[in-house]
């Protein structure tokens, strides 16, 4: 088993999760829980692929995917911010809508072949660094490199900039932010949009870059939900989310690769091609999400930090005061 190759492929797979998770981190940091990530990723994936097929330009597909998912997110935003709807139910509705929409738009798409994909490159110099080079900087999709940049940008934006301070205030104590003249609603709309755009990007990364093609619901296959779980594990930190995404990416890859192997540590591997035991193996990522979410929750309790304090609650400027 070529571990380097597995990890490199794991990085690619993790990219998708990282982008979606960071998008959700932005939304949740502003106080809005958006459970519609799976639906938005599906819409992004189908939009990117279908545009790439019909126009031959994957990058146009990526752009459209980001816009489409961003627009979709605003539906949830209006419902929860201005109309104060329950954020959980609205997010679920968004998932249903996105899933259905993607199915409708994806009619007849999967048979399309010969699609130009987003290019892959190797970064010179960095690719020569031992271990890290071959894993992170060799023959990865351009979108993966974009994700590498996204992580520090997101992290610095949130922690070290003035807009980041305002974002955190809106998510922790919107009343305080409002009293200081920060536009709470506008901030929330904006960051939910960012979350949607990134979810769309993640979906596009699947269908026109890393796992090309459109396979109906299977295209995303629960990764949107895993991303949401990752946000909890990451304690709303982009860097931690990226690390978690890397872990999951490696696991996804590992599951596929181990199915070809004959023996594990000298024992006969039950996970041969076609074996039903592979289904048990497939449970691993989902069980791991549960484990990871439990860890994140316990940590939050122990360290007395945790979710942005106002997460999930609509903000109403107190008309009747205290």
């Amino acid at each position: 088993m070529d571990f380097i190759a597995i990890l490199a492929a794991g990085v690619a797979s993790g990219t998708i999760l990282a982008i979606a998770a960071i998008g959700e981190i932005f939304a949740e940091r502003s106080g809005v829980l958006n459970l519609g990530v799976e639906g938005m990723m599906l819409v992004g994936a189908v939009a990117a692929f279908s545009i790439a097929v019909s126009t031959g330009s994957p990058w146009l597909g990526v752009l459209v995917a980001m816009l489409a998912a961003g627009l979709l997110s605003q539906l949830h935003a209006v419902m929860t911010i201005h109309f104060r709807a329950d954020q959980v139910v609205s997010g679920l509705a968004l998932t249903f809508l996105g899933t259905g929409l993607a199915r409708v738009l994806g009619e007849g798409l999967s048979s399309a072949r010969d699609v130009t994909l987003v290019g892959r490159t190797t970064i010179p110099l960095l690719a020569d660094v031992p271990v890290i080079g071959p894993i992170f900087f060799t023959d990865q999709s351009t979108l993966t490199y974009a994700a590498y940049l996204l992580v520090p940008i997101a992290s610095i934006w949130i922690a070290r900039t003035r807009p980041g301070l305002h974002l955190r205030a809106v998510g922790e104590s919107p009343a305080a932010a409002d009293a200081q003249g920060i536009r709470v609603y506008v901030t929330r709309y904006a960051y939910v949009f960012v979350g949607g755009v990134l979810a769309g990007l993640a979906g596009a990364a699947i269908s026109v870059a890393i796992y090309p093609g459109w396979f109906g619901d299977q295209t995303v296959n629960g990764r949107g939900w895993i991303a949401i779980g990752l946000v909890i594990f990451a304690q709303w930190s982009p860097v931690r989310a990226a690390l978690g995404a890397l872990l999951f990416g490696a696991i996804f890859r590992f599951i596929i690769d181990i199915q070809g192997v004959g023996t594990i540590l000298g024992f006969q591997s039950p996970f041969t091609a076609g074996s039903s035991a592979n289904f048990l193996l497939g449970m691993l990522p989902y069980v791991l999400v549960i484990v990871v979410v439990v860890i994140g929750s316990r940590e939050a309790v122990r360290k007395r930090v945790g979710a942005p304090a106002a997460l999930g609650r609509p903000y109403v400027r107190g008309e009747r005061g205290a």
Partner: protein
Amino acid sequence: MTDAAEATPPPPEAGPAAGAPVPALEARGIVKAFPGVLANDAVDFDLRPGEIHALLGENGAGKSTLMNILAGLYRPDAGEILLDGRPVAFRSPREAIAAGLGMVHQHFTLVPSQTVTENVLLGLSKPRFWLRPAASDAEVAGLASRYGLKVDPEARIWQLSVGEQQRVEILKLLYRGARILIMDEPTAVLAPQEIEAMMRTLRSMAADGRSIVFISHKLGEVLAIADRITVMRHGRVTAAGIPAAGATRTDLAKLMVGRAVFDVLDRAPIEPGPVVLDVRGVSAENDRALPALRDLSLQVRAGEILGIAAVAGNGQSELAEVITALRPCRGSVRIGDQEVANRSTATAIKAGVAHVPEDRTGVGTSPNLSLADNLIMKRYTAPPIARGWFIDDDAARHMAQGLKDTYSIAAPSIDTEARLLSGGNLQRLIIAREIDTGPRLMVAVQPTRGLDVGAIETVHMTLLRRREAGTAILLISEELDELLALADRIAVLYEGRIVGMFPAETADIHEIGLLMTGGGDPGGPEAVTAATPGASGDGA
């Protein structure tokens, strides 16, 4: 007590005096209505430069509403506002602050998880993009020391005491160059010594040329600090800008309530019975995992009211929660023979504890359930309400109706949802429910907070009647006056410990105030609160 006509206010120096400088702030004919209540009814108000102007009135008189309008939070339905003589119409607090008018609210608008500096900087357009923690901290520290407001810029808000948080709120306004400051019930959360410090700060800011509005319902403080006083009642102004120098507590009380208000309570001497509540060596942490109670012990006997005097944040909420089994602790809490520490709330209830909680809407009642459903909350596990697994609807409704009538809970019917009730009626509901179980021990936490005078009287009468009936009562309150009027003994709670215990007859408000803020030994008065004539003054 004369319940007759309105008191005639002294000859008005109300309004901008002819030939006087333009008022810093003026409101004319302000009208504001909320569903079901006319909060401001053609209100006029003016504020002169460099003065401290008190806005006095009881809860619900419309003072906060008026100030929220001036500060840009609400829009008036009618009327106009002039700043330095120019008409203004603020559409948001930000516009008001930009114009130099800021408000320190009763409930602070601070972000608990962020630092003092971050809170002060919040909402500003500087720093432009990159945060510079060190430079900003220094700037805030400098500003703080210039006005004698001691606070650590790097501290996170949740680590600060309430008094320190208030200083941060003031700092926020000063940092933005506010010339007019509105303080909404600023002393509600402070002990007498902290109040004195705050008064000094206000005076120095006024001397600096800033104008201050001081909203309060406490006559003594208002007389101590204000240059002029405006009194509001039921949404109208009953005395506009009268000079504080000539006013008496009696006059002001009449203007506030329409009659002279003296809480003369009929507290009969009672021989207390056996010990009902026995707290020994209790230690507990608060929600932030910081120590809230430290090896605390106390006892309450049947037929006795033990008052707990404490400044907010010294463990009183945690004490009530430990006794009612809502919070784990180390040590022992016994109600009669039953140990309730670390047991279930059901155990405490069965042991005969009634709890009138601080949070009426979040804990004491269930907002979307009906009055009936709320009233059976403590009785639904036993007959006659319970019939095996089922709830006897008729019995429940009968009981609910009975309680509603007996305790005069004003609501359309027992099917009305609890959230539609006013604060006073909600409290009546809670008290009705809790007393109906015939408890051995009552734990009442801030029972009269935010209530109008009528409701306050009801609560006080009820507590005294329960006392006569032999219930042991633990009364936790921030209102020292209330404790002095009701309690047989007063214990002072400071940083999780009982630091003083006084029989009511010999309790001295200065001493208690001192202990509440951790100062000195009990006994031996300090030179304190020199300039508060209202404390011992006329007619109390």
